[in-house]
């Protein structure tokens, strides 16, 4: 289905797009993502895949095909890598096991220690786990909140490289990031938030070259 996978009134995210959601801390990026998911009420009307989801609960919205990689990763600490992945799957039995195995191949860092408890993993491994977990049910829309925070440069590069690949397969990705240059490198478009309002949008290359961007980002 082409068309808007995510519509929050002020901006949309289409299939196959990577959109960078920029803004300093306190700008409202997390609030927006949580609003889209349904964790908090939003002034804007949220439409997922063309459908008004205002009356739907979080679990119901996610079931429509949304993957979420939250700030701070939030893996299920006591569960192993495999269990973290399996618990999120809506498939049953053999299909689920197959999908878990697929993920372990796609993310070699996880394939190395599939039976380790999640709390033992490094920051980078946890981030990969959080991403893999979000992808278990092949979501059409992926929401990511500051995934590069606290990660080594190599891991960051690995992570960001995957985004255009996923987009090419038709997934829509909304990437909330404070580090604008990083995000714009992986995105096709950018949206800048300040104090909950959109102050700038445009193609990624244009925004990246804008000298005023640093001030906008620091504006809070």
């Amino acid at each position, binding site marked *: 289905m082409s068309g808007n996978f995510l519509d929050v009134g002020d901006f949309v995210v289409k299939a196959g797009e990577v959109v960078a959601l920029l803004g*300093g*801390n*306190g*700008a409202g990026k997390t609030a927006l993502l949580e609003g889209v998911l349904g964790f908090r009420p939003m002034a804007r009307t949220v439409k997922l895949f063309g459908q008004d989801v205002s009356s739907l609960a979080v679990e119901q919205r996610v079931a429509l095909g949304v993957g979420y990689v939250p700030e701070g990763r939030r893996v299920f600490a006591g569960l192993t890598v495999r269990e973290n992945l399996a618990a999120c799957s809506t498939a049953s039995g053999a299909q689920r096991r197959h999908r878990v195995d697929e993920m372990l191949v796609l993310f070699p860092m996880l394939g190395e220690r599939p039976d380790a408890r999640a709390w033992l993993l490094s*920051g980078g491994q946890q981030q990969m786990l959080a991403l893999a977990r979000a992808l278990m049910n092949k979501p059409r829309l992926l929401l990511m909140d*500051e995934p*590069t*925070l*606290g990660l080594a*440069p190599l891991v*960051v590069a690995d992570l960001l490289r995957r985004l255009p690949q996923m987009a090419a397969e038709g997934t829509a990705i909304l990437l909330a*990031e*404070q*580090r*604008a*240059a*990083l*995000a714009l*490198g992986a995105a096709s478009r950018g949206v800048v938030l300040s*104090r909950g309002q959109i102050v700038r949008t445009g193609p990624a290359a244009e925004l990246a070259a804008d000298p005023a*961007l*640093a*001030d906008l*980002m*620091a*504006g*809070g």
Partner: protein
Amino acid sequence: MRPLGAFWLAALLALPIFALAVLPPFGQRMVTLVGIYALMGLGYQLVFGQLGALNLAQGALFGVGAYAAALAAPTLGMLALPVAILGAALPAALAAGPVLRLQSHYFALATLALASIVNLVAVHAEGLTGGANGLSGFALALPRGPVLLVTVWFCVIAAVLIYAQLFCSRLGDEARLLREAPLVAATLGIDGGRWRLAAFVVGGALAGLAGAFSAAISGVVSPDVTGFSVMVLCLTFVVIGGSRHPMGAVIGALLAVCLPEILRDFQGAWLLVYAVATLAIVRWVPGGLAELIDRLRGVRSPVPHTPAVPERLLATSGAQRLVLDTVVKRFGGVDALAGVSFSVGRGEIVGLIGPNGSGKTTLLNVIGGLDRADGGAITLDDMHLEHLPPHAIARKGLGRTFQTLMLEGDTRSADLARAVSTGAAFLLLDEPAAGATDRERGQLVSLLHRLRDAGRGVVIVDHDIELLTRACDRLVCLDRGKVIAIGRPAEVRADPQVRASFLGLAEVAA
């Protein structure tokens, strides 16, 4: 909390007077019992109601008081009463130390274990306590009948009045802060440990006194008096009456004593009704019956005092300089702070900026004592702060606001006003402008200038560079735990390293 009004005072006096003047001995006995329970309940309100601690030892302390009185009465007569008070207060004080530090669910368990031990001793230490049969024959030395009624109610009335007076003022606000936002309380210099100890000991003393009176009224003391059922009764009637209201204990006790009489035809059913009532009250009338009665009378519960910024902003403490010297803080293998150094003097406003994860809030936590530094020194003049608990640091002259509001119904301006009102020489402000309108930001800037003119030192963390540029004398920029720039706002903003860190350019170059 309000001081006891005429209505409640009249009710409080009317009950014992009515009993003495009109009721037969049986009725007088019931009213005395109400007073006894009310005393135990008032003691419980201190720890459970005011501080919100899940205390399960009150019943046991009641029993200890009863046994102490029974043992002391034959030799000491009336002096058995103060002995009973001490007898309960002392174990409370001794046990308090290690127990009070515990988190709520562990605290409940510890008090439960203590109570169980007391019960075991009562049942099995036959030499001391008479075992399962208990003690008797001591009551002749203690007050009885109308004299006992007057004694008990004298104590109750005094206790209720003192309680109402104490908690309707600053003490009540402090208790509320300790209960709902212990971190805020610590930054205001409130010593939670001492508070809890005082409440536990005084609460225990009241329980002991009540126990002694109950020994006097029944003439027999048996292990039941230390059993869990006494504790459950105390807890439930305090909740039904109102766990914080000064008349809560009395009203709850009244119900606890009268209900079995009213329902005496339905053997044992009264306890069932009682328990259901407790559950209903917790769900739907959490303030208890006393508060319900107040509401029906049209008396509004007092709105907690909203702090406002005082007119005079001069500092009341003397420290002149706050110095950070190579402060280090590690979480797991990561350096949240990798050697941060800067200083702030009086009459200076320093802004702290940096991207998410750069360590700003960690730094504030470490300075204020909410977290321990792993290296480096933090000093106020020549006083080292690194090993002091938060409330002690607050008292030395450091105030703070928080990024997330911790009290229900609080606002950022209230949080700020509270910190300013402490008169602390130095203030640490964590994102005071978050979510503020332009007008509010302007007001914040003027307040900051006024604070500077009044000679206070301020460290302010925020993301609004414009605001910080207007308000601050200097900016410190952190990135991944290190200071990458210090200087006047314009200089720091133009610094290429700073601009790069905000955009994440350093990463791309790597």
